[in-house]
């Protein structure tokens, strides 16, 4: 049938090489020796001027990691990773750590400018509230700059790279690091605990509503390195913070590993809103190269009435394997997970969430939209569980999949475990396909193939896009459209 043949032809012709963040930066980098060893850990720890307790923490993690086996239960396939062939630390020779922007390598500044990341603090746009965003820019293994620190400090908010936080606020870091994702949690978290390099640290004091959006932008540049960032956000009682994470990487032929750990702690009546727009290099049109995004993200709603919401738009990576989760420990705490996961070409996604209801009258909400195109595979994996003491637990889950073309796959793996009779868990799921007829109808009205798919996809993901901070919702929409280019037949 001609329609199917055209789809097949167009899929073959997908120019995935249009990933426009794929440039790499020529810059002098300092690297640790290749591979994993106590020496490499000591090197990293010394570079960052870390206290003894942290070095010991890392070494213990490495010891433990050597006894662990890589998990393989996810619905993703990849060649074995040779951990000894990676560099675990790569930092630009000039411009790592605090200091003025003048000290930063100009090539680095140009990179972030090209990516559209504002490193120079921008004056408030006249009359537009909330237009400023504080940025922590992380290039390979180091944080290059963090903006608006002084202003945030006036409100009592600490926003810095985690390396700096370890030096300036060790007691805070020590208190909370590893308390949400313990060192023993899983293979990649243990690895991260041993070799984590940089990431963001946020502390919002009691009763403070953080005066601006905080964001971290991660850029992997150097070849053959893994990126192991660690982020820790603490919202003290009654506080609020909204945080956004963005990521890109250059196009390379070999795969690069990104194994991050993000820990969130919300105390009584506190709220953390964590948004991610992930656009790591997805691999070229043959499926070669691309980032392996194996990430552990977890939020602990420790306090009564606390709330943590995760919003993610995942469009990149060759393989995405992550389950941002919430531990609903405090009574009346709330967890939310809003996700749009797009896969095209040869990408593989196994993502979802875990909502663990422990306290009383806790509630969680999951809205997951998976869009699969090309030859990709897109799996939603979710766990909603209620402890036997979790009376009054409520969950609403809605996971929808949209398939574009005939060569992709969408799968849903929901786990529901309730040990308390008063728990109410609702689950709705749909799988649909963009039908040729629908596309023809849109085209007859004047929309070209790409515009038609974008319109239909936008309708599909509307509920989730609404959860993103406004400026990023627009970016995310554009990103989704770009990710689906060439998927139509």
């Amino acid at each position, binding site marked *: 049938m*001609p329609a199917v043949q055209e789809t097949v032809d167009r899929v073959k012709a997908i120019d995935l090489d249009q990933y426009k963040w794929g440039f790499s930066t020529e810059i002098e980098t300092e690297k640790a020796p290749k591979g994993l060893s106590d020496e490499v850990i000591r090197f990293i720890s010394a570079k960052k001027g870390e206290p003894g307790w942290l070095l010991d923490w890392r070494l213990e993690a490495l010891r433990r990691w050597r006894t662990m086996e890589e998990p393989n239960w996810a619905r993703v396939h990849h060649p074995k990773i040779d951990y000894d062939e990676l560099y675990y630390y790569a930092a630009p020779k000039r411009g790592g750590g605090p200091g003025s922007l003048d000290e930063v390598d100009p090539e680095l500044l140009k990179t972030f400018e090209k990516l559209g990341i504002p490193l120079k603090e921008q004056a408030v746009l006249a009359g537009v509230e909330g237009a400023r965003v504080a940025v922590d820019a992380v290039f390979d293994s180091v944080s290059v700059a963090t903006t608006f620190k002084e202003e945030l400090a006036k409100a009592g908010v600490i926003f810095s790279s985690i390396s700096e936080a370890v030096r300036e606020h060790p007691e805070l870091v020590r208190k909370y690091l590893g308390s949400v994702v313990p060192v023993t949690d899983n293979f990649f978290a243990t690895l991260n605990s041993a070799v984590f390099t940089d990431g963001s640290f946020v502390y919002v004091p009691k009763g403070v509503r953080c005066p601006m959006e905080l964001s971290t932008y991660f850029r992997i540049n150097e070849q053959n390195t893994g990126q192991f960032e660690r982020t820790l956000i603490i919202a003290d009682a009654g506080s609020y913070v909204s945080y956004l994470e963005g990521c890109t990487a250059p196009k390379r032929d070999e795969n690069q590993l990104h194994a991050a750990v993000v820990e969130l702690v919300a105390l009584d009546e506190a709220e953390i809103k964590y948004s991610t727009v992930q656009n790591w290099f997805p691999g070229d049109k043959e499926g070669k190269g691309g980032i392996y995004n194996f990430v552990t993200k977890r939020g602990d709603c420790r306090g009564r009435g606390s709330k943590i919401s995760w919003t993610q738009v995942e469009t990149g990576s060759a393989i995405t394997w992550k389950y941002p989760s919430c531990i609903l420990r405090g009574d009346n705490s709330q967890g939310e997970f809003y996700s749009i996961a797009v896969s095209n070409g040869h990408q593989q996604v196994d993502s979802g969430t875990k909502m663990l209801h422990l306290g009383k009258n806790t509630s969680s909400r999951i809205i997951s939209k998976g869009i699969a195109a090309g030859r990709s595979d897109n799996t939603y994996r979710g766990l909603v569980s209620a402890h036997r003491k979790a009376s009054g637990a409520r969950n609403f889950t809605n996971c929808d999949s949209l398939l574009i073309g005939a060569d992709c796959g969408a799968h849903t793996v929901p786990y529901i475990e309730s040990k308390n009779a008063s728990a109410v868990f609702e689950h709705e799921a749909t799988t649909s396909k963009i039908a040729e007829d629908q596309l023809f*109808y849109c*085209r*007859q*009205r*004047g929309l070209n*193939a790409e515009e038609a798919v974008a*319109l239909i996809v936008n*309708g599909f993901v509307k509920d989730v896009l609404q959860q993103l901070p406004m400026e990023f919702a627009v970016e995310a929409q554009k990103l989704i459209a770009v990710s689906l280019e060439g998927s139509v037949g």
Partner: protein
Amino acid sequence: MLEIRNLHAEIDGKPILKGVSLTVKPGEVAAIMGPNGSGKSTLSYVIAGKEDYQLTEGEVLLDGENLLEMEPDERAAKGLFLAFQYPLEIPGVATMTFLKAALNAQRRRRGEGEISPADFIRRVNKAADSLGISKEILRRALNVGFSGGEKKRMEILQMAILEPRMCVLDETDSGLDIDALRIVAQGVNALRARDRAFLVITHYQRLLSHIVPDTVHVMAGGRIVKSGGPELATELEAKGYADFSAQAAE
């Protein structure tokens, strides 16, 4: 305005259109009537550019340009509109959003600017009022959960807003009750103009009492077998398609 010359089309190797030739002049309302299987819907799909068909011979010229060489959205921008027999549902996309996106896509293609939000709302409200379509329906996802009559009226609404020059109505009357039929016909008649033409495809004479055609063509066996004035429709109503089916089988 529209010239169909010796059009041949097949689907999966089976010939459906076997040499259709037909002309529609600006300002003209031409009706095509015929029995099931005569190829009427295929003709409308081929004119609009649906991909399932192999075009083995012939041309379809709109103001001298061959539509068959254009993508469906290009044809739309040139002023072609097909009112579907079975309008599709587009979940999650509000009717207003869809209409605006379509109109602007066409205007951009033609090098006109996008329509201003105020003008757009004015245009939509005017058309919606005359077709008895509520504002509430406009906010809902396009055609999702709409009754048959509502879907057909929505097709006419889209036609009113997109302001096409060549309108093909594919069995617009199917599934409509008397009142809905009258409203739809009113909507179409309101759009009749000197520089616009209509090709109205139908089984039944009933619609043509409301939308009185200038010409009636009879299609059978993939070809136009007879053409005449509006009285031809009444004749068909009385005698049926039997004579023509026999003819086409030869």
